[in-house]
């Protein structure tokens, strides 16, 4: 048996920063101002159900776009030489070295009215508002979270040995079947962790919508606002979000297991 003592600091960390806060959120969610058990915060929280669904939709669209963009890219990268792979991955990570808010603010500058993109489009006679709508939020989300899709996909794909692809070709698969029968099934674990790593933060993130979405808030923004005045309702919304995300994760993992066995 390994020395258990080495895990104590981690357990303490878990207790202080994970277990206790969750317990507090649950406590606040199920009590009212007077500290008595009550479901009133959930009733209050239901006022925001529309924003809640909207947030899930934005998260879903952003995740889907990330997957579509990242999948072929990751595969292409995974077929490069090791040193090339490291370099490309590093370049993909470079934007993440910059502050999250700065990156979003850069998009505000790009998309704003009379901003560079707006000017170019109006030069061609296309006159549309680029900022303050769902598309702008999705663009921001995709930009923020694309690396989180690429990394797990790349990790899984770089482990797919070229000889497996050659074996599939050798046994009579054209490129389509090589993808369908070998590359896709073997990359499912990467797809699942990629979706998880993008969907969860996009569903709960805040500020992106505030900057790019105009009046279109997302649930993260709502939690931030509500929490400032009402801990109980804020906790209730946060708890619902947590449960939904947990349900989503369980679903994803179950789906992944079935896929891995089924093909």
């Amino acid at each position, binding site marked *: 048996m390994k020395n258990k003592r080495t895990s104590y600091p981690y357990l303490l960390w878990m207790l202080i920063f994970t277990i206790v806060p969750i317990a507090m959120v649950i406590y606040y969610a199920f009590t009212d101002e007077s500290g008595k058990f009550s479901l009133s915060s959930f009733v209050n929280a239901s006022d925001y159900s529309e924003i809640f669904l909207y947030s899930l939709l934005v998260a879903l669209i952003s995740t889907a776009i990330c997957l579509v963009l990242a999948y072929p890219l990751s595969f292409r990268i995974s077929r490069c030489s090791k040193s090339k792979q490291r370099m490309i991955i590093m370049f993909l990570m470079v934007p993440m070295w910059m502050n999250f808010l700065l990156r979003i603010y850069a998009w505000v500058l790009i998309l704003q009215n009379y901003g560079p993109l707006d000017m170019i489009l109006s030069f061609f006679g296309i006159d549309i508002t680029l900022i303050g709508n769902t598309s702008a939020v999705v663009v921001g989300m995709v930009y923020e979270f694309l690396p989180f899709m690429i990394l797990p996909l790349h990790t899984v794909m770089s482990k797919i*040995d070229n*000889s*497996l692809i*050659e*074996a*599939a*070709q*050798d*046994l*009579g*698969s*054209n490129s389509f*079947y090589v993808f369908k*029968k*070998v590359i896709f*099934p*073997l990359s499912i674990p990467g797809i699942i962790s990629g979706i998880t790593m993008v969907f969860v933060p996009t569903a709960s993130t805040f500020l992106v919508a505030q900057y790019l979405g105009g009046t279109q808030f997302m649930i993260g923004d709502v939690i931030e606002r509500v929490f400032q005045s009402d801990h109980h309702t804020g906790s209730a919304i946060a708890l619902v979000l947590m449960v939904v995300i947990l349900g989503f994760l369980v679903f994803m993992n179950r789906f992944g297991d079935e896929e*891995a066995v089924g*093909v």
Partner: protein
Amino acid sequence: MGKNAILSLKDIYFNYGNEVILNGINLDIYDKEFITLLGPSGCGKTTTLRIIAGFETPKSGEVYFENKLINDLPPYKRSINTVFQKYALFPHLNVFDNVAFGLKLKKMPKKEIEKKVKHMLSIVDLKGYEKRSVSALSGGQQQRVAIARALVCDPDVVLLDEPLGALDLKLRKDMQLELKQLQQKTQKTFIYVTHDQEEALTMSDRVVVMNNGSIAQIGTPEDIYNEPSDAFVADFIGEANIINGIMIDDCRVKILQKEIPCVDTGFKKNSPVDVVIRPEDIEVVDKDKAQFIGVVEDTVFKGVHFEMSVMCGKCLWLIHSTVAQKVGDTIGMYIEPDNIHIMNKLFATSNNELDLSVYYSDKDDNTTTVLIEGNEVTIKDKFFEEGTLLHVVLPPEALSIAGDGVGNLDEVYIESVIWKGEHNEIILESDERKWIMQSDTDEQVATYVPITFDFSKADISVISEGENEE
């Protein structure tokens, strides 16, 4: 075994950047034969296999399958299946689905797939393993799945890329026999790649010995062993004493300063040759009947025979005999004339001869500098005027591998290393030419080394004087 070629390679040339991998491969593969491509690592055997499978396209030359040109036919359209070096089984599929992979793509009815897969699994002794995950199988079992997966598609040709390399010795020996039996049972053409000469001799109908991107010899295992075409093949296949000799006349060869009879004819008089004698062909006889006298240096019991090292003059002979000799004893040795194999030298001349013009020279230091393949090389203690054209003869012992890593020529390719009884004879290839070198240490073939020249051992003569004489 039919004698019609099912697969033909014509003048195949292949390179990666500047590195030539295959240099003019010509090979006919007959229907239903077990043919082995044998050679040291880096000789191009795997590349040849990959060209046949369709994973690589030759830079020039043609691949014919049943008389049809298939250079540009993708792998999935070839009736050729491969057993990969590390099996390449699909980790997400169980044994049944791995084997059924090719059949499913052929859109065969389910019932038939099931029947064929079950039949094939029983042939490779894996009945009842259908539902197992491939990662739960031993190396030998994975190997059988890989073979079943290739054979079940009923290809005309099966390619096997060192399929037994990862198995331990005992299992490897069993699998060798099984593979041979499987090939006879299924009546398929097997093309087998290995660097293990024993494996090649055991299994093959024909062996193709490859070296440095070319074919050194094609023949039955008996031919290759008994009549190797050159010193490289003799050295690579089995054990052999390879020594320098001089062909005095037809059927007369001089080795170790002694003229002895042999059966080979047709060589030029007094031409240097390589002489190959298998260790089991040297007989220990009474000293008065002996051709050579030597002192036993070492005796090792090898099970079937004793392996002895006998020092004969400066040359160390390897002898296999069922009778042990005591270390330190002086023994007589005799070789039957038809057991002496004479072959042309791998290197056309016995020295390196170069024509060089003096690049610059320094009278005070008494040095001369020449250019060899673009590198400045300084000859010490010799002075020639600039522009003088020199004829330099560098004997093999004047070349050495630079111990400090910085040589006169860098990145010289080691083409072959052959033990000549007294020392290793190493053939090197630089950008522009080949070199012959003598060394007491063993070197790894197919690697790149820096070499240095020792001009004090060289014979330098002047062809024409430089123009700007002082």
